[in-house]
């Protein structure tokens, strides 16, 4: 049953945080000895750079001390372990690839020499070109990743099947019975607690399926057939309208049932596996874990499961299942006309997506403009806050500025006050009949009120401006801490090299900040895409644009972003849940694509296991 194995590749993480991927480092075997080989570009270029093999276990290897041999052109390999088989073919393949990579490296070095001679603008152009040239490669990598995922999935399923068959074939009789009666094997081995749990679970599942699960599943394909029937009541001598199916409930409980089925399948698999392990242990003459051990492990080696159980249950029930429900709603015609109760809703396929994404249709114009504004808004909201906040922090941090604490405290205080109070007040401050207009008229600066919230362009500028007002204190707080972490000697050394204040900012402060706060910037961009509060409380998405038409009784406006649009559609007079779901999914797509791109471009900086 030996699988043919591809060459063993390993991933190696370098101490400095960069990762050498599968292709660059490999574990190969030759003449019974395994070697960990390192391709040219992943070699240590500085002294004492350490690599960590297999980052989970914190096994660190100092590369300087390891090499036992050299490849013809100087690449290093080192002996790691002896092993069974000869794999000269693997070695040949490695050498071929090695040579290829060596050539690649030489080419890159040439390029690097060219690049170093370019001036600033040429470099910018060069980088831009490189960026766009890399795009196809990302896609290839992405598809490869997807392909690998499915391949692994297939392999996993096959492995499981083989394992099940073997367990049945070689297992003890109690294990075989456990295929039918869950927990039987555990009982047979004296693990009454586990056995009981398994048995209870099986009982509960079967009962649920018989009593209601099967019913929901059978209707899941159509989401109900009959909404209401008229029943003649003999006693009262009238016909009563009786509700039969409820699409909403069918969809919800259908999902739940499917979820239960998966959970049950997993439990069943677990049950078989445990019986197998028990068999193994008994066969090797050791004792299986008793119920007492199980109880002890709840607070000891299984403590993480104890900790996770309740929160994860909450997340599954109140976040994951509802989201799956709403995703499925996007493929139905669920709205105020088809409420699932008086009028059933049903599957409509991709119709909803068609109506919003088909070029030129009424809705797609609105969607396009709102999406554009959402991205513009998120971009400006993020970066204006970021740079201005950093600027303020630097002003306060500057040597020679007194009462630093005072300035900070005043700004921080504004974070504490609940946003809805300050934003609602500011919104009214700039209303047509608000304080600002009134003062301006009184001072004869203007004759008629400025329409801060009812003029499209002005409203956009206003929400951005007020957002800066909201965001600066927050960014000031974050950046202050990081700015103070920049080592002073960087500035001192640059001073000796002759840099002035601005050059110090551009060459030291900014790169450092961008590096450290890169992930934060992405996060804040995403949270600005979903920044409901500022838009809704200030302009409520207005001024309305009737030319875009209404969805769900809600007319979107100039400052409407996707999330407020979604909210308006959900809560409007003619609530249109299916479109709301579609928009929700589209927001997800936008956010996830952005994150993917950013994570691909960003140099892989700190990882969670970097520490210790």
């Amino acid at each position, binding site marked *: 049953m030996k699988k043919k194995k591809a060459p063993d590749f390993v991933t190696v993480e370098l101490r400095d945080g960069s990762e050498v991927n599968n292709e660059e480092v490999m574990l190969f075997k030759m003449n019974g000895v395994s070697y960990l080989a390192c391709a040219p570009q992943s070699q240590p270029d500085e002294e004492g750079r350490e690599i960590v093999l297999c980052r989970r276990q914190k096994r660190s290897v100092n590369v300087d001390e390891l090499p036992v041999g050299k490849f013809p052109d100087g690449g290093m390999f080192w002996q790691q372990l002896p092993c069974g088989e000869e794999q000269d073919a693997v070695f040949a393949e490695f050498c071929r690839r090695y040579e290829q990579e060596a050539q690649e490296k030489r080419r890159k070095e040439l390029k690097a020499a060219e690049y170093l001679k370019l001036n600033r603008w040429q470099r910018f152009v060069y980088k831009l070109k490189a960026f766009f040239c890399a795009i196809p490669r990302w896609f290839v990598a992405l598809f490869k990743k997807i392909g690998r995922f499915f391949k692994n999935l297939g392999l996993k399923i096959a492995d499981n099947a083989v394992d099940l068959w073997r367990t049945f074939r070689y297992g003890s009789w109690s294990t075989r019975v456990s295929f039918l009666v869950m927990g039987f094997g555990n009982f047979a081995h004296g693990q009454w607690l586990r056995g009981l749990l398994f048995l209870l679970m099986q009982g509960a599942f079967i009962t649920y399926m018989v009593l209601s699960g099967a019913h929901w599943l059978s209707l899941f394909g159509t989401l109900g057939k009959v909404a209401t029937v008229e029943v003649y009541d003999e006693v009262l001598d009238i016909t009563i309208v009786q509700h039969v199916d409820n699409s*909403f409930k069918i969809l919800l409980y259908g999902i739940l049932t499917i979820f239960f089925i998966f959970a049950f399948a997993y439990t069943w698999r677990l049950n078989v596996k445990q019986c197998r392990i028990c068999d193994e242990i008994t066969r090797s003459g050791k004792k299986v874990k008793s119920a007492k051990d199980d109880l002890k492990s709840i607070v000891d080696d299984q403590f993480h499961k104890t*900790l996770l159980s309740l929160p994860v249950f909450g*997340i599954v029930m109140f976040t994951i299942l509802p989201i799956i429900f709403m995703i499925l709603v996007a493929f139905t015609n669920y709205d105020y006309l088809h409420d699932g109760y008086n009028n059933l809703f049903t599957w409509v396929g991709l119709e909803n997506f068609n109506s919003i994404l088909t070029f030129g249709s009424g809705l797609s114009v609105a969607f396009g403009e709102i999406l554009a504004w959402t991205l513009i808004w998120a971009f400006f909201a993020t970066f204006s806050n970021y740079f201005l906040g950093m600027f303020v922090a630097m002003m306060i941090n500057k040597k020679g500025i007194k009462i630093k604490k005072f300035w900070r405290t005043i700004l921080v205080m504004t974070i504490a006050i609940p946003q*809805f109070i300050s934003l609602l007040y500011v919104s009214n401050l700039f209303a047509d009949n608000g304080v600002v207009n009134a003062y301006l008229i009184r001072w004869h600066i203007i004759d008629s009120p400025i329409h801060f919230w009812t003029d499209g362009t002005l409203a956009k500028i206003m929400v951005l401006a007020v957002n800066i007002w909201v965001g600066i204190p927050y960014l000031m707080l974050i950046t202050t801490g990081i700015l103070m972490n920049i080592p002073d000697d960087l500035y001192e050394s640059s001073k000796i090299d002759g840099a002035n204040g601005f050059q110090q900012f551009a060459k030291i402060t900014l790169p450092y900040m961008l590096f450290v706060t890169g992930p934060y910037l992405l996060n804040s961009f995403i949270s600005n895409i979903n920044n409901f509060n500022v838009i809704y409380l200030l302009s409520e998405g207005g001024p309305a644009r009737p030319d875009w038409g209404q969805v769900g009784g809600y007319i979107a406006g100039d400052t409407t972003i996707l999330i407020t649009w979604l909210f308006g559609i959900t809560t409007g007079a003619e609530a249109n849940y299916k479109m709301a779901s579609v928009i929700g999914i589209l927001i997800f797509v936008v*956010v996830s694509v952005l994150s993917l791109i950013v994570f691909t471009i960003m140099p892989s900086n700190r990882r969670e296991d970097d520490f210790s």
Partner: protein
Amino acid sequence: MTEQETSQQILDFDVDFNAAAANVEIDPPDPNFTQTEQTEFRKRFVDVPRPVSRLVGQRVTNRIANTVIYIVLSIMCIVWLLPFFGIVFESFRCESTGLEGYIFPKKWGFDNYVRLFTDPTSNFLRWFGNTLAMGLITSVVQTAFQLAVSYALSRNRFKGRKFLMNMMLVFGMFPGFLTLILLYTLLSDWNLTMTNAPWGLILIYIASSGMGYYIAKGFFDTISHSLDEAARVDGATQMQIFFKIILPLSKPIVIYTILMGFMAPWGDFVMATFMANNTNNGYNVAAGLQWLLTDSMINDYYTTFCAGGVLVAIPITILFMLLQKYYVAGVTGGAVKG
């Protein structure tokens, strides 16, 4: 001893140091080894006369820069504080209750505050009570949940950990409002909306609180693993490690989590408005006060809103300023960790 001596003499060396020194021959240095030359670079680019910037001039520019910064910061403080003074002033206005074109009241008084508590429409006490209860319960349970999840994900490498984290990441990318309608329907089945909305909201807050594990996890990641190991060698169970070692070390992040949990209900008006569904009794302060500003109410209740805002802002601000240190630790850590 003698044996040694003889063998040493054969190999040309002697215990007698003078003799040893006499044996040592040092030939004069190789001429190739001496090299130092004036570099062309230094002649052309370094040792040339150039004007020198004076420190005095720098000092003057520095003083000007500082003055400019003081001015900018002062203006900022005014701009940032203006709205809050505005709210406070307008809350003391007695002559009218609607929007007016000025900030300073013509007639000062506590009318609006009195009205806040006596007017049956505003129902402020109920809102405040609702929010306080939500804040207290949520902060406790949410903290427990978040710390549990972050600890488990930070300290243990179990099967399915990556899957769990990816799951939370992916589902976290969906906008939260998406599920409003479903949650409302579900909760109204269990009679947890309308008047009981606060309880429904507590359930929602708590149930999804595990998703916000990032910051606490980032903190736990920075605690050295050898502490755990030392405790294990000392005989502690995982639970004892959590409660006796890690939690006491995590005071800042625990307080931060509690603070966040407590403050969230005070600002949440979307969920609160939706779940209460026009039932005055079920509002929290945010939903309630926002309701006072709807078009039909604003003319009668604008100043009442201001008074309510002041009453809400004061305790929250005090609490926040007291625990500011922990808040800063939390957000900075979160931003750097990402």
